[in-house]
């Protein structure tokens, strides 16, 4: 049964997520609340690993989530299920090409999906921030990362590695004191 749920959940992500890899996080966040496949802590860990390994983040995180949920078969299933809607759409759109992007409903839908995606991600950011609110060091780190990136955005890899190093250093300092 878990395979069927896994397939359906990741198929839905592939069909409804819009705006790149990180746009799949709201769905994964929702899954962690509905099913007991992985915890919220594991989700951030998954996103981090997905960002520092090669390949599209959205696919990597599906592979990882599938693995956590139902082993290696689950991970292959989740990965393929997430790409299946795209495969069908790409084949259809390839045939229509220009007609597709000029269509009134397609344009209206894209214009509507942009603010919805922003809203979905904003509410996930709020949800993930809540447990961090009593961790002043984490808040300072998030603040520093945001200030650093405000003028010129760098590779996601950069933020993850530098934060991991800071985390290790803080533990090291603590053992010294």
């Amino acid at each position, binding site marked *: 049964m878990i395979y069927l749920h896994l397939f359906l959940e990741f198929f839905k992500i592939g069909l*409804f*997520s*819009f705006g*790149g*890899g990180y746009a799949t996080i*709201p769905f994964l966040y929702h899954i962690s609340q*509905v099913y007991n496949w992985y915890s919220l*802590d594991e989700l*951030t*860990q998954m996103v*981090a*690993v997905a960002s520092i390994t*090669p*390949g*599209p983040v*959205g*696919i*990597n995180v599906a*592979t990882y989530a599938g*693995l*956590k949920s139902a082993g*290696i078969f689950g991970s292959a299933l989740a990965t393929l299920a*997430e*790409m299946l*809607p*795209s*495969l069908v759409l*790409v*084949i259809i759109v390839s045939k229509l*090409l220009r007609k597709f992007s000029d269509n009134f409903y397609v344009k*209206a*839908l894209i214009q*509507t*999906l*942009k*603010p*919805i995606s*922003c*809203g*979905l*991600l*904003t509410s996930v950011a709020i949800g*993930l921030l809540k447990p961090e609110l009593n961790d002043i060091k*984490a808040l300072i*780190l998030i603040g520093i*990362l*945001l200030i650093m*990136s405000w003028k010129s955005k760098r*590779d*996601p*890899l950069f933020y*993850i590695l530098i*934060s*991991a190093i*800071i*985390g*290790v250093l*803080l*533990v090291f300092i603590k*053992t010294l004191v």
Partner: protein
Amino acid sequence: MSLFKLFLIFTKIGAILLGGGYVILPIMTNEFVDKRNLVSHDDIVDYFALAQSLPGIIAANMSMFIGYKLRGKWGAIIAMLGVTFVPFWCIVLLASVIGGLTENNYVQGALWGVSAAVIALIVLTVREMWQKSHRDLFFYTIFVLTVLTLLIFKLSPIQTILIFSILGVGYKRIREAKK
């Protein structure tokens, strides 16, 4: 171009794709326009725009468009399998290593830092989407309504998307009809 060759090219692309969406366009242009001259530059730019306007993962969508262009349906399937081949095994290997390490203090420290970075990355993604969008009253209204709905009612992302895209597209249709 044989399907096997296509698989190898996309396997290579999957393996060097690091750092999110920024690198997709340059990597694909280099591989298919500059090096092999299989796709025109205009096509690549078209595919990139289309890949972003379809649901799903942009890099995967883009690979499937090029695969389809070169070898039809099977080309698209092979592109999809190729671009995820190396990343898939990287995740499976790394996950099996990480599981045993999480007890370690230093690893926990690193994970603490990483979860802060993930929050910052999500905020940055919102900011980037925000900057790339044409922001009018319509945009702000839908954005605020989405956030409020999600905070107050525990709707799933899909319910939220369905409700607001019907409302949004319906509104645009009515306004278009009035013109």
